[in-house]
């Protein structure tokens, strides 16, 4: 029992709990993002409500955690790395909550796609996009779980794939305008835009972790 007595053991526990809860929330959001991708690419209309329903606990958890971070800021007077982490945590919470909302928004577009003729090129691009953004988001959650500053530093480059695929998707949709109809076009634009936004949130989360760890925000427009 050397060093039997950390001076702020209880406070350290609280910070650990916040980090663990962030990872858990991120995992819940990530799971819903993947599910939204499946719903969109396989047209599983019957699972739309499940994805929407799964966002409720995410929101509840978000508010709960936000309050906890707020309370710790008020009561424990964090400084230095603790302060950076908690400030980053409030931003990460916001990014995660928004990402969860975007997954909900994505599945809501699925009904508009009902009855649209199958197009392999479009399905392939949506699949690639959903996969890429989900991976980006997973990576961000990993950065939180391991407090890995490197992930945030490389995040902009990593995110380029999503941007490229989104551009390809928009081009393909425009070309097939007449075949699939205006409503499906709008739906697909939204879906593309939302997945891309999710990946952006993932980038931001990883960058907030970089800030929490190093005290510096990664270069880029962050």
């Amino acid at each position, binding site marked *: *029992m050397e060093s039997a*007595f950390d001076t702020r053991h209880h406070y350290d526990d*609280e910070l650990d*709990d*916040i980090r663990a809860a962030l990872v858990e929330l991120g995992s*819940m959001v990530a799971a*819903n993002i993947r599910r939204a991708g499946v719903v969109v690419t396989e047209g599983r209309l019957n699972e739309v409500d499940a994805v929407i329903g799964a966002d409720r*606990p995410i929101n*509840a958890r978000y508010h709960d955690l936000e309050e906890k971070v707020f*309370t710790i800021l008020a009561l424990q007077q964090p400084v230095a790395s603790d302060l950076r982490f908690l400030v980053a945590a409030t931003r990460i919470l916001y990014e995660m909550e928004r990402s969860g909302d975007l997954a909900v928004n994505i599945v809501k577009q699925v009904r508009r796609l009902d009855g649209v003729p199958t197009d392999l090129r479009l399905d392939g691009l949506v699949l690639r996009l959903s996969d890429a953004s989900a991976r980006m988001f997973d990576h961000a959650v990993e950065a939180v779980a391991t407090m890995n500053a490197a992930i945030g530093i490389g995040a902009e480059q990593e995110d380029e794939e999503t941007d490229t695929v989104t551009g390809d998707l928009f081009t393909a949709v425009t070309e097939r305008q007449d075949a699939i109809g205006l409503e499906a076009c709008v739906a697909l634009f939204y879906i593309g835009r939302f997945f891309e936004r999710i990946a952006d949130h993932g980038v931001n989360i990883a960058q907030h972790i970089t800030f929490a760890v190093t005290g510096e925000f990664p270069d880029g427009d962050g």
Partner: protein
Amino acid sequence: MADRIGTTVDSVDHTRPETLEDASPSLAATRSPRVTGGTPSDEHAVILELSDVNAYYGDFHAVDSVSLPIREKEVTAFIGPSGCGKSTVIRSINRMNDLIPTARIEGAITYHGVDLYAPGVDPVEVRRRIGMVFQKPNPFPKSIYDNVAFGPKISKYSGDMDELVERSLTRAALWDEVKDKLSDSAYALSGGQQQRLCIARAIATSPDVLLMDEPASALDPIATLRIEELMYELKQEYTIVIVTHNMQQAARVSDRTAFFSVDVKEGQRTGRLVEFADTATIFTNPQHDETEDYITGRFG
């Protein structure tokens, strides 16, 4: 929230889901966060109740009409500017004020429903159940062992004294530092260690309640944080009341906070209770402007 597009999801829904597992992730091993400090539940029973307590020193009205409940296994902090009567109130709880000849308490302080100021109540018995730790570490000029053993000895403790001393010192997070020098003078310890020794001495008599009158004000920051951490551990077993002039300390350690202020009337300074609430509320959203001004450092 401006960039939210086409969503009808109610994002201010505070209700918890039936089962979190439904939405549970596969990605990372998770553990649910436990309830953090500052959000006490009302499950803890009231162990001490101050009702309309007035304190006088001779003709001087020191504290005006304080009423508040103290719940068991919580840390209750008294904060406020100098002369607000917070020390007077805490010292009245175990009748330490009896030792000041001119001091007088009116109103009732009940402990498990029994009025501590009822005729026939023995203050010595009260103090064995409601122990006290003082502002300046005040070990007896004796060995570390004798310091801890004194209380149990006078209350005719019949068990294994060595074991009790070890247990008390362990609970006070001091055992590892002193186990090889129990017969050394307590004065050989550092200030922070002395204060933990005083805490060990206080808990050796197995009190219900520990009163701490500015227990860290004479200590350096690290020793202070150790005492605070110790308080967090001790509240699993004891009810703690702490007076502190350090607001941040109250924020860090307490579950509930009482803010006292002082009125100056005709040259007399009379303390009174302004606000009593759970600590998170006091420090994030106090209901009284006076509290707000004090904790934000704009008054006092």
